């Protein structure tokens, strides 16, 4: 009570403060509807879980009740069953393996060639001036548009799939690596020079260590794209892989197989992303201090 009285006293003296006391008087606003305000962790978790539960509930309601044609959308049970059959009777694990192999083979080649090139482009303007025009223009040509051309050139074998992954990832990888490298702070280079590092020495002792976490994040991002390129490549022409299974299932009206295939590729992408995310945090603890 005393405090309130004091406040009123002040308010009388200084009219400016009246605004404040009026604000104090407005009804308490709901915290969780405040823009950008944090909410308690448990509340966040419950809301997140409920969104998945609600989605699942609607799906179950529509399918088990028979409102929706199973050909259009099968029940959750059907999808799990077809998943089991795919693994036990149709050797789905081999399709998964071949898809993973294609993604990693193509992406590995892109990284092995693209990283050094990107680092050189980001470091030396002469290298950048030479490669930038070509790489920048090819970058905007979608890799999927090249598929017919590659089939003409190299057929429908493994080489063609790997090439598509390579083309889909290489050019962006080079340019984004170059950006990461050229963003290394000038002061770091200058500090190294005044500590006796040579012009070429900074490449190894400053530019590389400074840029590597950003480059790893770039690799993580682009690996995500590779998963969608491989499905496109396998949908167009392939006898194996998750994409080819999806296409075959469509021809045989096996909706549940299609959905299981999509879920599998999603899980693979998510898994590879998580592994890289954790690995990056573990590898560069200095980048995530306070």
């Amino acid at each position, binding site marked *: 009570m005393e405090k309130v009285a004091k406040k009123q006293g002040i308010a009388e003296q200084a009219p400016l403060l009246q605004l404040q006391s009026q604000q104090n008087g407005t009804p308490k606003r709901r915290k969780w509807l405040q823009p950008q305000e944090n909410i308690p962790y448990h509340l966040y978790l419950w809301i997140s879980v409920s969104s998945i539960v609600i989605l699942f509930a609607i799906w179950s309601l529509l399918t088990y009740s028979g409102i929706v044609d199973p050909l259009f959308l099968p029940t959750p049970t059907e999808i799990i069953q077809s998943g089991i059959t795919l693994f036990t009777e149709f050797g789905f694990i081999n399709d998964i393996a071949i898809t993973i192999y294609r993604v990693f083979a193509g992406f590995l080649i892109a990284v092995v060639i693209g990283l050094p090139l990107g680092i050189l482009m980001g470091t030396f303007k002469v290298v950048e001036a030479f490669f930038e025009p070509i790489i920048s223009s090819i970058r905007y040509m979608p890799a999927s548009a090249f598929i017919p051309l590659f089939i003409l050139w190299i057929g429908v074998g493994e080489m063609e799939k790997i090439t598509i992954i390579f083309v889909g990832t290489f050019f962006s990888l080079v340019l984004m690596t170059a950006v990461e490298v050229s963003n290394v*702070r000038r*002061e*770091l280079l*200058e*500090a*190294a*020079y*005044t*500590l*006796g*590092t040579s012009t070429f*020495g900074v490449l190894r*002792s*400053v530019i590389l*260590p*400074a840029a590597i976490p950003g480059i790893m994040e770039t690799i993580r991002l682009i690996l995500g794209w590779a998963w969608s390129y491989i499905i496109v490549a396998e949908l167009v022409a392939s006898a194996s892989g998750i994409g080819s299974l999806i296409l075959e299932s469509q021809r045989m009206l096996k909706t549940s197989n299609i959905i299981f295939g999509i879920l599998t590729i999603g899980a693979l992408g998510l898994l590879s992303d998580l592994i890289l995310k954790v690995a990056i945090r573990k590898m*560069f*603890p*200095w*980048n995530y*201090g*306070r």
Partner: protein
Amino acid sequence: MMSMSNPKVRIDNVVKVFSGSRKHAQVLAVDHVSLDIMTNEFITILGPSGCGKSTLLRIVAGLEEQSSGHVYLDGQEVHGPSSNRGMVFQAYSLFPWLTVEENIQFGLKNKGVIAARRKEIAKEYVELVRLTGFEKHYPKQLSGGMQQRVAIARALANDPEILLLDEPFGALDNQTRTLMQELLLEIWEKSNKTILFITHDVEESIFLANRVIVMTSRPGRIKADIPIELEHPRPYNIKTTPRFLEYKEQLTELIREESLKAMQEAK
């Protein structure tokens, strides 16, 4: 070996013109500056912002090339940066992937000093800048003042002929800045390094220096060269003594003229 008549660093008629482009006119940043820095001197260069004082320092460091004129270290003309001129930047120049002790060892590694000796030297300088216990910390885990202490230790560990500091405390809060000035002065009193220190802070320039060089606003010329005859060691409360305040008044007047000129031009 060094006789008092030979300067440690001689800046001889240095001119820096930043070449213009379609958007920007040519700028004369440093205009015929000559300055002799004696061994063990602590010189501060005081000037309004944008007066070319940092450019001058960067030329001495070899990070910027002068348009004409020469810089000599122990009588030898210098071209380009080298470990004999250590530099402390305004902020964020530590290598973030290296720990405090690794940062301090960076230059020693370049010199090929063996690991055990490097560790010893790093320990010594960690103690000097009072960061014992933080050897294994990464720069991101340190406050701004601590980071700058590491930067000073890193430059000193390399044992340069001259230490160049470019407004090293400019980004720090007032209290931290005062403590850092005392620490740097204490280090200088102990080690008798030759130091060239850039600042726009009048009090800082007096407190630290044997000589304050006042620069004009653009183009940067030397306006005054004022020896500071205050005793050493200087306690922090020297800043309130009449002698100090006299210097402060004199320098404030000098620098104010230049700031006003700079403001007029900016219009």
